[in-house]
């Protein structure tokens, strides 16, 4: 229950669910990594969750390494229905899916579909505030 998000209280957290076979996810990921690199020092944390099949996890790890992702990431470990509803009841299951939490751990945004670098920064920066 919210372990990873609650463990990051005090930081703005963006959770992104992606998969190696999801082209918009692959296109978006470099921008997510860029936002983490640029805003991590201001209290931003990116949590990536792969929805790849178990057999594809090596490919997911390789893709993340190629993108320069060095921090631990996560993978779906249960059935789709439970995973989807556990994250966001309004999520239809389409990828990519993103949730944004403020420094108090409150979910403030959810969206399906790819976001551009500019859109990501526009959503995250106001939450960083004065630190």
């Amino acid at each position: 229950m919210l372990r990873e998000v609650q463990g990051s209280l005090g930081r703005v957290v963006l959770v992104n669910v992606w998969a190696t076979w999801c082209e918009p996810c692959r296109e978006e990921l470099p921008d997510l990594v860029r936002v983490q690199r640029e805003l991590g020092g201001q209290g931003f944390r990116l949590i990536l969750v792969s929805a790849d099949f178990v057999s594809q996890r090596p490919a997911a790890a390789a893709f993340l390494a190629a993108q320069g992702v060095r921090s631990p990431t996560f993978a779906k470990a249960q059935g789709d229905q439970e995973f989807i509803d556990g994250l966001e009841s309004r999520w239809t299951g389409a990828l990519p899916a993103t949730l944004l939490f403020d420094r108090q751990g409150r979910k403030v945004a959810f969206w399906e579909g790819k976001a551009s670098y500019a859109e990501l920064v526009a959503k995250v920066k106001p939450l960083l505030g004065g630190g």
Partner: protein
Amino acid sequence: MRITTLAAFAIVGLAAGSQAGVALTLGDRAPAADVKMKNVDGRELTIGEVAGARGTLVIFSCNHCPWVKAWEQRLAELGNACKAKGIGVIVVNPNDPAAYPEDSFEGMQERAKARGFQFPYVVDSTSGVARAFGATRTPEAFLFDAAGALVYHGAIDDNAEDAAKVTKHYLRDALDAVATGARPAIAESKAIGCSIKLRAD
């Protein structure tokens, strides 16, 4: 690169919009039922024209999505069995082939032949049918009963990766129920899928 398996954490809060329109709710009738869509055999068909005496199954699908590919044999088997149950079937590809060339009409023809589809596989040429349904991903199934009311919406089953490990045969069970005039025990389900690449308005 360390990847940690993660049990989903429950989150309650506000949602901030989604890709397509609001999805149909149970009891709704099929929208855009008179929109003509080109089938792989060249005919123009509508959802209304393929409706069955016992019910109608509409599945949004495509060629390129690996989740569709994982489920496709099961989709073909279920779809091919519908005629004997009195259920009409139409599989709709709403994707923009400019975004995914694999979703071209020629690609659809090849896929239908390779998988032995005995039902229409049509092009939603404006993505308007997908928008009307509020469909967001492929594959996504909508099953209507004999009266035309939506009685099941969602996934084919609960395990795309391994057919042998399926524990919930959502669509199969829903089709069996509708064929006998009964209501599906599970009316809605969710699954991971590829977002629909809507054509520009």
